[in-house]
């Protein structure tokens, strides 16, 4: 009973954190409208918001990968492939009819004549409140469909490959993602996937900014990806803490024992794989909205590796770890560490080593250090509150020991 109470308490904390984060983002984004002058970092054009958007997207994908790799112990490297599926589903469904000829210019228009938004515009009207409703609704539907398509493909590929053991599964899913990429780039599918060209002109985050008289009166473009990512992550947290989540962890810890205790391995592995892929697909949709285009070229193995490394840095099996690691990683690689790439002079002294590509070298070295010396990552398989509790506890023990030692020394003197 006590345990359940604790569970309830921690879910309230999570909820409070989530709402807090959302409000903070909303405030940060709109501070420039409220206050007469703000530091450059808070202007809507600041890199801060680009980084926040990207981090929100990546944190969702990282958590979805962690659900599979960290909580179920299935080592899959197909994340980029499932993101691709989500991104393309969204893009294909959402390019407005008016832009189709331009976007699909090589194929003389698209196979699909309408976009979801066009259809809903027909129902709710395209301006004012009706327009907003149809925008939100169509984006939502396309997002869920993106996730479902990814989940469907995950199910198809999962049937044969989920029986494979750790590294074989990894390489099979990696191969699957590569196959997907080749198919989506195929010229013959051009009228649907736009072949090699990127699909663009679909609604992105900035379409959610509220405008009045040509001016933005409320910025929502960072808020939206945060909202979606947070909802998805909360759902995953709930799943992990449910009876199914416990079953996943049992499979991770000991497959044989899990099976002997009545957990159907095939079914539960599939559930985890499909769920993870669903959220990776939604992550793909968010990513497409972030880069404002969908192009298969981007969803490479390198992207999967990047996400995997984020998960490792954060701690395999820790959702809060993944989130913290994503924000740190994205902020470092896209913002704070960029100075490493620029040749810098202090006076006339040229700082050695700093030139193009150095940032990524520093990055890979940091990653190797984490992998080798901090094997469990930032938080191990603990969540943030528990990790803090443990640190506090161990600090206390150390302090006591120190005091004891001091006492003893004093006594001997």
């Amino acid at each position: 009973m006590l345990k359940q109470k604790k569970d309830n308490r921690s879910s309230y904390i999570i909820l409070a954190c989530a709402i807090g984060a959302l409000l903070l983002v909303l405030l940060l984004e709109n501070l420039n409208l409220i206050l007469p002058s703000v530091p450059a970092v808070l202007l809507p054009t600041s890199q801060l918001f680009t980084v926040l958007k990207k981090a929100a997207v990546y944190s969702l994908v990282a958590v979805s990968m962690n659900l599979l790799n960290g909580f179920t112990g299935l080592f899959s490297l197909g994340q980029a492939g499932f993101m691709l599926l989500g991104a393309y589903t969204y893009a294909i469904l959402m390019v407005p009819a008016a832009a189709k000829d331009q976007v699909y210019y090589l194929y003389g228009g698209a196979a699909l004549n309408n976009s979801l938004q066009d259809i809903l515009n027909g129902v709710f009207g395209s301006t004012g409140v009706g327009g907003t409703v149809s925008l939100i609704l169509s984006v939502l539907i396309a997002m869920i469909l993106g996730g479902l398509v990814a989940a469907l493909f995950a199910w198809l590929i999962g049937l044969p490959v989920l029986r494979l053991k750790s590294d074989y599964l990894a390489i099979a899913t990696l191969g699957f993602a590569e196959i997907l990429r080749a198919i989506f780039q195929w010229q013959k599918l051009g009228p649907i996937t736009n072949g090699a060209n990127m699909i663009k002109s679909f609604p992105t985050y900035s379409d959610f900014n509220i405008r009045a008289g040509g001016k933005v009166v409320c910025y929502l473009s960072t808020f939206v990806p945060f909202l979606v990512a947070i909802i998805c992550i909360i759902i995953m947290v709930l799943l992990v803490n449910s009876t199914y989540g416990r079953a996943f962890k049992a499979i991770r810890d000991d497959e044989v024992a899990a099976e002997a205790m009545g957990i159907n391995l095939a079914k539960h592995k599939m559930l985890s794989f499909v769920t993870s892929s669903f959220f990776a697909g939604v992550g793909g949709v968010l990513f497409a909205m972030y880069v404002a285009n969908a192009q298969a070229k981007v969803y490479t193995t390198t992207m999967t590796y990047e996400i995997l490394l984020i998960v490792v840095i954060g701690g395999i099996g820790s959702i809060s770890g993944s989130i913290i690691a994503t924000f740190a990683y994205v902020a470092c690689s896209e913002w704070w560490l960029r100075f490493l790439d620029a040749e810098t002079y202090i006076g006339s002294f040229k700082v050695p080593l700093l030139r193009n590509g150095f940032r990524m070298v520093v990055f890979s070295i940091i990653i190797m250090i984490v992998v080798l010396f901090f094997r469990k990552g930032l938080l191990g398989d603990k969540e943030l509150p528990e990790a803090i509790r443990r640190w506090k506890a161990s600090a206390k023990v150390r302090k006591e020991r120190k005091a004891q030692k001091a006492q003893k020394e004093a006594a001997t003197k």
Partner: protein
Amino acid sequence: MQFAVSILLSGISVGGQYALIAIGYTMVYGILRLINFAHGDVFMVAGLLGIYLTATMPLYISLPLVLIGTVILGFAIERLAYKPLRTAPRMSVMISAIGVSYLLQNLATYITGGQPMTYPNIAILTKTVTIAGTPTKMAVLVTPILVIILVVALTQLINHTKIGMGMRAVSKDFETAQLMGIKINNVISATFIVGSALAAIGSMLYFSCYTAVTPTIGALPGLKAFVAAVFGGIGSIPGAVIGAFIIGICESIIKGLPSAWDVTVFSDAFTFALLIIVLVFKPTGLFGEKATDKV
């Protein structure tokens, strides 16, 4: 006819180069149960070494130095990135391998400045010869012969030397081998040294045919070589070689299919599809041994 010969030739040459990389994969996997993702990048570094060393010294010095440099790199990777994780779960080691691969690629990007580099001309290998009316490079001919010689030599090493016996023992049972007094670390190092040396030789042959060296050039041949190793039955050297030739030739045939079908882009996808099929239906590959998990 000439077209068919040319396709077969390029298939054999690509297959041979995959084979040289695949041996490294299959040996390491056999012993450590680790997909050494960095192996393809070791191959790339060997290419870059070839470029930088040949720029300053004659070939007869630079090529042996490339071999030595690559071996040292392979050895160092094992000692620094894999050995500390000997007791860690397999997944950690694999992540370390991915990390090393990432590091090597980024280092290469940094050093080359992201530009494709051109491999030096090794006259013996790039000479044009004509076979059945089809002009081709000498390297294409040399590759399969060299592969066969090396495989024979390697099988001798494994079957008739002490270190080879160690390798076999360790691949059968890691812990027992350790208990029986086999110096595990020496055996593993030897494996990495052999694998890296073969990757260095492979790089010379490969880049003589395909001269542009980019930081990511190793990733794809690396993965394909791994597929070849799985296809042949992981842990089996002749299996890896045969697998590599089959994959090389199949790829070449797919690329040579009529353009109207528009399927040539699937030559890589085919390799991965083959991988999935093999893993699902015959996970032990062509020549692999079956292993049962103990409960």
